[in-house]
């Protein structure tokens, strides 16, 4: 058996490693995706007041601190059995929409666009954000930076700091929004809407108008028939901040719809001896292995799964794009992994529109910022949609609100099995006997991984930044017979 190692994965995870095992005939036999995971979260939380966790958990991950802050804040609400005031919920959601705008812009332009705008098999030295700027122009690059900065400014305005967020307290928020601040946010949100529409136009021009790319999306080795998970509102529309978790099967039929505090009835986690990361699966389906299909317990929690699991978007422009995507790709549900990029841009537009809705809501400048706490704290679960999947925080406290136990299922963890399967499928489709394993082929294997926008809790801890890709081909005895590397 030959072994191909992609280590580390470019542009995404300094410590991640993909091991591809080849059969003697040169075909791919298996693929293993491995990442380290932070340890000791439960112990780290134990003994701390539950209301402190919303501030502490932002420090786990520098990439999505707002998601952890939001899930933690909602879990603390649940621990205290308190429903935040209407104004507080809207301020939280406004903050969260800015967080989504920032993150989705970053993923599309810095991580996804190089594969499409520059080209999946373009030289690695050009296949990066600089290559994108060279193709689309400096003005657009400047606008990307500007919109990201504005999204950060809104988060800092509402959350006290863009990373060290101090917005949520049980039952509400620490700070309200003045009319002057609201007007400023409204103008900024209008800019988000225009930029989101523009980003979708780029996707149209560069990807959808390119027959080769459309063919890769629809017919390349990038499809998995998985169940889809996503948070929905009372009308089954996509919601990032609140609602119930809905799971639809591979045919798009509703399997489950559950409240956050019921999650343990529906999701179970398993461990594999070769991975530090757990593998959540649908408990009622059971673990059937790394297989897709209707009987499998594997699901995904991604921008595409959120759209699959919903009956639509709650804002008009995003709804129109939602309909266009499904019309173009042959109806719901879509199982093409690379369509996650399109779904992510639809979510970007939804976030922008929703931010504008909230910024023009008369209640957003209300002063009723916190509901009183009158119950004894005990146990609570908070679930939000992180950019990378459904994020669950679960705390158990004593009657003084001191944390006794904590559990997290982070966005990317939901997709661990799906990512492994996508990589295997891509590798099997691209690495064949007699086909030279080029840098371009390796990148196309990685594209299966990148579509998930995976983020591991150790993303704040990373080396090396240039992430050279090294591929070792070994014979069945483990002897190195060839090396492909890029710098």
């Amino acid at each position, binding site marked *: 058996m030959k072994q191909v190692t992609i280590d580390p994965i470019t*542009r*995404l*995870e*300094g410590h991640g490693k993909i091991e591809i095992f080849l059969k003697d005939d040169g075909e791919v036999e298996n693929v293993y995706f491995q990442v*380290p*995971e*932070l*340890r*000791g*979260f439960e*112990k*780290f939380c134990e003994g701390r007041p539950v209301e402190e966790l919303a501030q*502490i958990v932002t*420090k*786990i991950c*520098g*990439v999505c*601190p707002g998601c952890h802050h939001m899930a933690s804040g909602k879990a603390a609400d649940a621990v205290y059995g308190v429903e935040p005031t209407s104004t507080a919920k809207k301020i939280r959601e406004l903050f969260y929409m800015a967080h989504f705008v920032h993150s989705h812009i*970053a*993923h599309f332009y*810095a*991580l996804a666009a190089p594969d499409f705008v520059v080209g999946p098999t373009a030289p690695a030295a050009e296949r*990066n*954000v*600089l290559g994108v*700027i060279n193709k689309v122009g*400096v003005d657009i*690059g*400047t606008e990307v*930076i500007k919109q*990201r*900065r504005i999204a*950060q400014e809104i988060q800092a305005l509402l959350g006290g700091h863009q*990373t060290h967020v101090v917005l949520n307290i049980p039952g509400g928020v620490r700070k309200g929004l003045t009319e002057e601040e609201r007007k400023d946010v409204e103008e900024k949100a209008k800019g988000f809407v225009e930029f989101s529409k523009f980003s979708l136009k780029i996707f149209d021009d560069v990807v959808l108008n390119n027959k080769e790319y459309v063919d890769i999306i629809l017919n390349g080795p990038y499809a998995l028939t998985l169940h889809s998970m996503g948070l929905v509102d009372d009308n089954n529309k996509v919601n990032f901040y609140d609602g119930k978790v809905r799971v639809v099967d591979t045919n798009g039929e509703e399997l489950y719809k559950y409240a956050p505090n019921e999650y343990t009835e529906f999701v179970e986690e398993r461990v594999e001896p070769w991975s530090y990361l757990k593998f959540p699966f649908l408990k009622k389906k059971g673990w059937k292995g790394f297989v897709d299909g209707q009987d499998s317990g594997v699901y995904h929690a991604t921008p595409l799964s959120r759209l699959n699991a919903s009956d639509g978007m709650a804002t008009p422009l995003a709804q129109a794009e939602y309909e266009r995507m499904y019309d173009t790709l042959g109806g719901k549900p879509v199982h093409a992994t690379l369509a996650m990029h399109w779904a992510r841009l639809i979510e970007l537009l939804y976030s922008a529109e929703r931010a504008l809705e909230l910024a023009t809501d008369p209640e957003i400048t209300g002063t009723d910022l916190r509901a009183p706490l009158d119950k004894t704290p005990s146990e609570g679960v908070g679930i939000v949609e992180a950019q990378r999947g459904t994020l669950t925080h679960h705390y158990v406290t004593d009657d003084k609100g001191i944390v006794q136990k904590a559990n997290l299922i982070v966005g990317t963890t939901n997709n661990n099995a799906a990512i492994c399967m996508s990589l295997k499928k891509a590798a099997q489709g691209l690495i064949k006997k007699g086909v030279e394993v080029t840098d371009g082929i390796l990148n196309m294997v990685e594209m299966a991984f990148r579509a998930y926008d995976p*983020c591991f809790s*150790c*993303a*704040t*801890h*990373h*080396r*090396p*930044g*240039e*992430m050279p890709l090294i591929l070792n081909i070994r014979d069945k005895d483990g002897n190195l017979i060839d090396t492909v590397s890029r710098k």
Partner: protein
Amino acid sequence: MNEEKNILILGIGNEVLGDESLALRLTVDLQQSDSINGADYQQLYLGGLSILECIEGYKTLIVLDTTHTQEEKPGHVFGMSVNNFKETLHLSSTHDVPFLTALEVGTKLGFRIPGNIFVIAVEIEPDLTLGTSLSSNIENQYDTILSNVHKLIQQYVSISKSRTFK
């Protein structure tokens, strides 16, 4: 922003990941010592494009981070410029762009990037266990590390002053 600022000392790290919080603590202690004339201090968790807004307009940028080269013992202080830059633990973002790419993007887009950029990185042994305290090895060396970092900063400030700024 047109105002030209002088020196930015930028600490970067993760305060709940043990020794990976070292640069943040160093930044705080340097700021409190007030021993670097004309310096501003900031802290970040991650590099990537977000760094551009922090550093724009400064004449001199000195980044403090941790590193894991395995070439020296924990506590060793490395100093480098962008010309001989080797990746550190947090200055590049896996979810964004590497540090040098961020600088290139900034230059291309017209950001006023500091003319003098130095990186000081302290060798550590990363441990992915969450915790707010330094390892005993680093804690025991802390005063020496702080002193060595301070000396390097003074050296870099001196070099910067002798140059014509961009």
